[in-house]
């Protein structure tokens, strides 16, 4: 390892040395330079000029969006999808810190970090999606409480800070800053509750965004329960993403998780998925009716694929004990759910409004630049996660090792102002 004190001075250098010390993850055997990483770095670098071009020449120059299609891939995939993919964090954090389900503690850090990158991805994309990126902070100071978008903006910022707080013990442990660590541990449960409330709200707000377009969104997706559908499907997605990434990390890193953690997550998918299925069916049957699905149109096809591949099949699979015994099969089911929920978000944001937009004379297929940026953002999230796994105590061997009992309660609580 390079000694950073040579370049950055004594104080900074020691800090950098501590941060760059990867002995912590030696047992995981993470190699930084692999073909996959190289490809990811390449994809990430590709998206940098795209972002620059977008900022310099405007949203119209970089994307294929138009007046009939004001929202496209970046909102549909990066924002709606990215946020849904990050739902696991608040669920696991809530389970560990509030419900006191200790067995999930070993995956809590990874789930929270994963969410942090999911939200970062969404935040960067929405910043580039809005036409006046440099004033994207306006909603935070120009409150407009009627707007769901305002709620989303506020919550995105608050929740990113909450996730950063929840992740900070990893960094603080690493650099060994006891005081800071104690402070974070003191507010941890409060932060987790805050995170739970925020997540419940903005997962549903993303659906609530569409409440105002009864005339534009196809009735296959539009109904008054849309916010709650987004929430339930986000829960389903959360379980699957956590399970997916746990199995994945245990495959690529030398790291193992107890099987009953995975089974617990699978049951989570099973219950939320079953509920989601009946919820969707109820709204369909009491709303537009089954006929609309089989009406031989694009929307109907999309709805069928979304439900069959993304909900019914994985729920059916996970209901079988034989699948729940097999890590690989659970992995496959997770992928189906993740695909299904992402597909649902694209259906709501793109295919569900296609009929209206086309009638209004619009046509939309994402531009090369839109794809490049979205792919770059995914690469960014994967790389970030990998780097953190290498340099931070992401999978603690034994819980709370850096935190001897008694130190936290020794610090005096600060009186509330």
């Amino acid at each position, binding site marked *: 390892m390079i000694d950073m004190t040579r370049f950055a001075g004594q104080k900074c250098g020691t800090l950098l040395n501590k941060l760059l010390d990867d002995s912590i993850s030696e047992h995981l055997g993470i190699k930084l330079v692999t073909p996959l990483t190289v490809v990811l770095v390449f994809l990430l670098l590709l998206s940098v000029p795209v972002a620059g071009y977008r900022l*310099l*020449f*405007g*949203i*119209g120059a970089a994307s294929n*969006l138009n*007046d009939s299609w*004001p929202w496209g891939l970046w909102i549909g995939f990066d924002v709606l999808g990215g946020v849904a993919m990050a739902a696991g964090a608040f669920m696991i954090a809530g389970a560990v*810190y*509030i*419900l*006191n389900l200790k067995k999930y503690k070993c995956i809590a850090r990874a789930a929270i970090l994963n969410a942090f990158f999911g939200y970062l991805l969404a935040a960067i994309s929405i910043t580039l*999606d*809005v*036409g*006046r*990126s440099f004033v*994207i902070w*306006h*909603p935070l100071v*120009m*409150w*407009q*409480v*009627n*707007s*769901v*978008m305002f*709620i*989303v903006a506020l919550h995105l910022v608050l929740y990113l800070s909450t996730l950063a707080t929840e992740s900070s013990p990893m960094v603080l442990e690493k650099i060994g800053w006891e005081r800071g660590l104690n402070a974070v*541990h*003191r*507010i941890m*449960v*409060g*932060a987790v*509750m*805050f995170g*739970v*409330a925020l997540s*419940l*709200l903005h997962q*549903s*707000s993303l659906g*609530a965004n569409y*409440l*105002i*377009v*009864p*005339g*534009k969104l196809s009735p296959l997706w539009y109904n*008054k329960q849309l916010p709650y559908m987004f929430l339930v499907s986000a829960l389903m997605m959360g379980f699957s993403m956590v399970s997916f990434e746990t199995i994945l990390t245990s495959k690529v890193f030398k790291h193992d998780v107890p099987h009953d953690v995975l089974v617990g997550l699978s049951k989570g998918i099973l219950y939320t998925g079953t509920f989601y299925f009946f919820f969707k069916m109820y709204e369909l049957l009491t709303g537009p009716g089954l006929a609309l699905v089989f009406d031989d149109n694009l929307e109907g096809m999309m709805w069928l694929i979304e439900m069959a591949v993304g909900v019914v099949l994985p729920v059916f699979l996970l209901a079988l004990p034989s699948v729940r015994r097999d890590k690989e099969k659970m992995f496959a089911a997770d992928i189906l759910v993740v695909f299904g929920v992402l597909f649902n978000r694209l259906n709501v944001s793109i295919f569900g409004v296609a009929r209206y937009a086309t009638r209004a004379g619009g046509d939309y297929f994402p531009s090369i630049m839109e794809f490049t940026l979205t792919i770059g953002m995914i690469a960014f999230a994967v790389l970030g996660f990998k780097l953190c796994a290498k340099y931070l105590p992401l999978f603690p061997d034994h819980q709370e090792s850096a*935190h001897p*009992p*008694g*130190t*936290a*309660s020794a610090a005096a*609580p600060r009186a*509330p102002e």
Partner: protein
Amino acid sequence: MTVSRRKFLKIVASSGGALVASGVPLAPQAQARVSTVLPPQATGLLYDATLCVGCKACMVNCKTQNSVPGGALYKSGWPMPPYENGDIKLNNGIWDAPRELSGKTLNIIKVYKNGSAEVKDRAINGYAFFKQQCLHCVSPACVSVCPAGAFRKDPVNGAVYYLADRCIGCRYCQLACPFGVPRYEWDSAWPEVRKCQLCRHRQAEGKIAACAEACPTGATIFGKVLDLREEAKRRQALRPGDEYPFPIQKVGARETTLRPIAHYTDGIYGLVEAGGTQNLMLSGVPFELLGFGRNIAKYDLPRLTWAYIAKIPWVFLGVFVGGTAIYKMTHRNDKEG
């Protein structure tokens, strides 16, 4: 966790208290909810398609009059009104040929044609003109969805206007408007949303809307919304063929043109659509055929999202109270504290 339970509860209570407090600003702001009542001095336009001859004088005047400081199309540094060449080969930008509403066009006259297009204002084998622009909803979706408060409704005359300095360019207004009115300046690096603002700058000077001022036939007239509704109902109540003095430029104007009443269909557009609009339309051809969708909600749209937003403080309260209770229960058996 090594925090004692008492201390923990204190922390939760204080952070929770702070949060609920931060949610409290929502309560007084609840009155900021978009109104569903027509402003007392509300003004608007009545467009009677059966009078329109498709001369597009309103489009010309709209563009000219809104390209001056204060107008909805004004941008400093533009030497002349933003003309569109409409993809016409020889049009080198000196005449205006918009095809749709756009970031450069707030008002457009289009033609409906069917079959042999012989008779005006007839759906089959007929033709008709129609006008597209912002309808100035009584309870505008665009105002309610804007996260930065860039769209506003004038409390006196009800014109829905736009403050570019606040806009972040999220285009939620475009998605939300049931009539697809707001347009974006896609070709700009620092774009604005563009739509008719009911010539608010002219109204401030005591003038009437530019399109109504330019209309030679009285197809577009300006006036108080209540008067416009009366006028529209009066026309509808008459028998087709009856002679009627149609006012020019504004409702109740002394200058009129005597013409027979046409056959109106479909009622008055704008009485109930999206909870009512300040601009009204009459037509001889069903509005559906003119591109005004049938599935426009017949109530104010902002209430749909408000029903959701009003629940937010309760979610915070519920999570903190419920979460604390659950925390106490689940941590009962832990030795700490």
